[in-house]
Each structure stands twice: as structure tokens, then as C-alpha cells.
């Protein structure tokens, strides 16, 4: 029973971070209609920023949130503005070309990271990296608990933003009916730029929160792009609420897989779920609510 509960807790905590990753990708999917295959690589960039700030300046990862998130917002917005939006201008180009562009961007980011930081594994050891506390027999990693609550905080903030501000409503409106949004005066280029920036900032938060408990190398982006993709499919392409369910589901699946099947299989389990969802629940946990 304790093992079960321990696994459950670990899965939910991880799920909180995965949700944050998935919401970013779902937002982009919803507004642009494309899968951002550089999502994990953007997270990797945020992780290196956090690593470098700690390594060279001794800045605590939680403080780095205030640097890595704006930096990635900017990077994401620039990517949208200068590499993806121009593709829309050319009528003969299909949306698929934007997806290919994100693949290319992901590769470039990975190679830049390898050039600067080499392929070595890096990690950030903080005083709380290995700290735990117990409730009954179940142990909680302090860093993971903090990460979970910050992730929940950002998720709530994001929903507040989407539901209560004009820009947030414009993002949802563009996702629901782009032409109608244009008629209401929504500048769709500006909205796609902001959306890509927000998605990048959210995945940056997840990366920065992972740093104290995870290791880092240039190719870490790929697996996380894959996870984000699975979460987005689970959540029902473009649904931000769905992404939360998708994130928690993947967190739980990986956690139970690691406990009851074997540590080495967690990535495979995600992909098996992915295939099962596509086969038996196409559309994912979509449209449970309005966001």
C-alpha cells in the first residue's frame, strides 16, 4: 500500500510539471493549429539559462524563474515573428511547413547548446535538491513539492489570464474562429506572437523547476518534446484544460510504470498510452470545459 501511495504521489507531483509543459504546447496548437516540435528544446534552453545563472553567478533556480521565463517569452515570440509568421504569407506553403520549421529550430537550439556547453551532463545541486519530508510512511521530495505548487500557481495564473483579460480572450477567440476574431479587430499576428511567447515561458518555468532534481544535456529537448506531444494528444489537441489531465495522466503512467514495470521503461509507457489514446479515445480528454 505504501509503495502504491508513494508511486501515486510521485506521479501527481510530476504530473503538475507535465501539465505546465503540455499547456504551453496546447496553447500554440490551439491558436496556430500546429504542433511545436521545438517545445522540449525551448525547455532545454531555459534549463541551460538556469544552470548558467547558478554556475556562474550562484543564483538560485527559483530566482532564475524571473529571468528564464521572460527570456524564453522573448525567444518564443521572436521565433514566431521571424520564422513562423513569414511562412503564413506564402499562400502555397502548407501549415506542415511551419511544423518542419519548428523541427529545424529545435535542432539549431540543441546544437547551439552543445557548442556552448558540450555534451556533458550538468546538474545543479542545491541545499534542497535531495531534501525530503515524510507524511506517514510516504516521502516527499521538497524540490518536487515546491515545483508542483509553483506549477499549479502558474497554471492558475494562465487560466486567469485566458479567461479574464482582453488578450487572453483574443487568444481563445483566435483559436476558436480566426476570421471572426479578425473581424472583431484581433491582430492575429500579434496574438500568435504572444501565444508562442507564453507557451515558451510556461515550458521554461517547467524546465527551471526541474533543474534542482534533474540532470541536463543538450539532447534532453527531444524526449520532452515527445512528452509534450503525448500530453497534447491526450488532452485533445489544443485544449488547455485537457492538457492538465494529459499531464497528470502521463505523470501517473510514468510513475506506475517505473515502480511496477521498470525504471528504464518510462518513456515507452508514455508512447504506449499515446497509441492507445489515438486508437480508443481519439480527441483525448477534450472539451470538458470551455478553455
Amino acid at each position, binding site marked *: 500500500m505504501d509503495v502504491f501511495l508513494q508511486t501515486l504521489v510521485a506521479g501527481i507531483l510530476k504530473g503538475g510539471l507535465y501539465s505546465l509543459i503540455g499547456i504551453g504546447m496546447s496553447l500554440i496548437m490551439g491558436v496556430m493549429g500546429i504542433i511545436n516540435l521545438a517545445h522540449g528544446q525551448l525547455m532545454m534552453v531555459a534549463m541551460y539559462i538556469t544552470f548558467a545563472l547558478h554556475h556562474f553567478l550562484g543564483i538560485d533556480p527559483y530566482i532564475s524563474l524571473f529571468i528564464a521565463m521572460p527570456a524564453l517569452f522573448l525567444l518564443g515570440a521572436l521565433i514566431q515573428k521571424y520564422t513562423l509568421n513569414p511562412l503564413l504569407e506564402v499562400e502555397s506553403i502548407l501549415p506542415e511547413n511551419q511544423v518542419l520549421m519548428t523541427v529545424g529550430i529545435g535542432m539549431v537550439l540543441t546544437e547551439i547548446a552543445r557548442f556552448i556547453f558540450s555534451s556533458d551532463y550538468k546538474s545543479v545541486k542545491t541545499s534542497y535538491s535531495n531534501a525530503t519530508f515524510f507524511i506517514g510512511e510516504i516521502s516527499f521530495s521538497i524540490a518536487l513539492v515546491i515545483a508542483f505548487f509553483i506549477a499549479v500557481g502558474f497554471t492558475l495564473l494562465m487560466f486567469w489570464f485566458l479567461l479574464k483579460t*482582453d488578450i487572453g*480572450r483574443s487568444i481563445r477567440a483566435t483559436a*476558436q474562429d480566426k476570421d471572426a476574431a479578425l473581424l472583431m479587430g484581433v491582430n492575429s499576428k500579434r496574438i500568435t506572437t504572444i501565444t508562442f511567447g507564453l507557451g515558451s515561458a510556461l515550458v521554461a518555468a517547467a524546465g527551471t523547476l526541474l533543474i534542482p532534481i534533474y540532470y541536463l544535456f543538450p539532447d534532453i529537448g527531444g524526449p520532452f518534446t515527445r512528452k509534450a506531444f503525448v500530453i497534447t494528444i491526450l488532452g485533445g489537441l489544443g485544449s488547455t484544460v485537457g492538457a492538465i489531465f494529459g499531464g497528470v495522466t502521463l505523470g501517473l503512467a510514468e510513475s506506475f510504470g517505473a515502480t511496477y514495470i521498470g525504471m528504464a521503461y518510462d518513456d515507452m509507457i508514455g508512447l504506449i498510452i499515446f497509441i492507445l489514446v489515438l486508437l480508443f479515445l481519439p480527441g483525448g480528454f477534450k472539451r470538458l470545459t470551455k478553455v
Partner: protein
Amino acid sequence: MLTVNNIDVFYGDLQVLWDVSFEVKDGEILVLIGANGAGKSTTIKTISSLLTPAKGTIEFNGKRLDHHPPHEIIQQGIVHVPEGRRLFPEMSVEENLIMGSLYGEAKEKRKKTLEYVYELFPRLKERRDQMAGTMSGGEQQMAAIGRGLMSLPKIMMFDEPSLGLAPILVEDIFRMINTINSEGVTVLLVEQNVTQTLAMCNRAYVLENGRITMEGTGEELMNNEKVREAFLGI
């Protein structure tokens, strides 16, 4: 007030409007009638800059509108209530209405205009928290009109607001358009519903296969044999 001057419009290589010209005068109700596929929606989509004319110009109070990005048109005081309502289906009625008031004066007066719209359409007030996509066609049309009104427009363009509605609702909608016009909003109404629209308009143009073929007052066109033959089957 709004003039369309000799526009040609294409979808890719396919030309659908030929040398279309007309004028909407301040304060009037102008109707553009035409059969399915005549190019009515194309015409007002071009005014909204969703489409760009290959030739010709569109001017509003002397200012060029063509070749401006579509999101700037509403800020000029021209709002387009699109065919098929095109509400944001997963937003509440109130959120849909708010989406009409993103800029300038409309944003400042959002609360007041919202009350005005709710007064005009008490039904929308009852349904303010309902998802727009779950409402009936008539209610959706009211919400689409309300959303347009939220922008405090000088001109409202309606694309077949009666489409798919029961006759009794059609009357309601046309009455509402009259009310809106009497409060000072110029109306450009695109319709296939000829009898009712010709009766309520000041002037009308007939669009056939992408060309303007007739114009006149509502009464003139109503008594025109060709119009009666083409649209009323008499």
C-alpha cells in the same frame, strides 16, 4: 459615406466579382440582394479586408480601406456581422459580446454598451453565461448582432442574418435592424430574403453572378419585373 469603386475580386485564379461599385449613404439602410453564389459575402468580406480587391478601391469618408489589414477595419467604425453568425462557440455569450469592444471608445464604454445590448436583447441577458455554441440559431444571431453593436459602429454590415431562422424570428431580426438603424447606425444588409428586405430598405442593389445589374429604391425594385421574376418567381 462608404463607397466601393469598381472592384474585381478573385479567389486564387477564380474571379467572382467584376467591376462592382456602390455607395452606402450616411444613415440609410442599403440592401444588396442576390441569389446564392452571386458574390454577396465576397463583397462584404472585401470591405472587411478579409479579401483584397485585385482592382478598384474602397473608401470610407474619403479614407482608403482596401489593402489595410482586416483587424483595422472595426476600429474605423465598420463592423461585419458574418454569415452563419460565427460566434466563438466555446465562449459565453457575455464573452462574445466583450470581444466586440476591444478598442478605444468601445472598450471604455464596454459596461454601458453591454447594458444597452442586454436591454435590446433581454434574451441574451438571461443567457449571458451560456456557451454561445449551445444556443439556438435565433439566439446566436442576436448575440452576433449584439457583438457587432459592442464596437459602437458607424456602419453595420449584416450578411444574411435571416439565414436558417424560422419566419417569426426573421421578422424579429429585421425589426431589430430597423431599430438599430433608427438609432443612427448606417446599415448595409446583404440578403436573399427579397420581399422583406426591399420593404424595409432605402435603396438596394442587385448582384448577379458577380456584377451589379440593377439599383433603385426598395419600391422600384419590388415593382421591377426582372427582380420579381428572378427572386420571387412571379
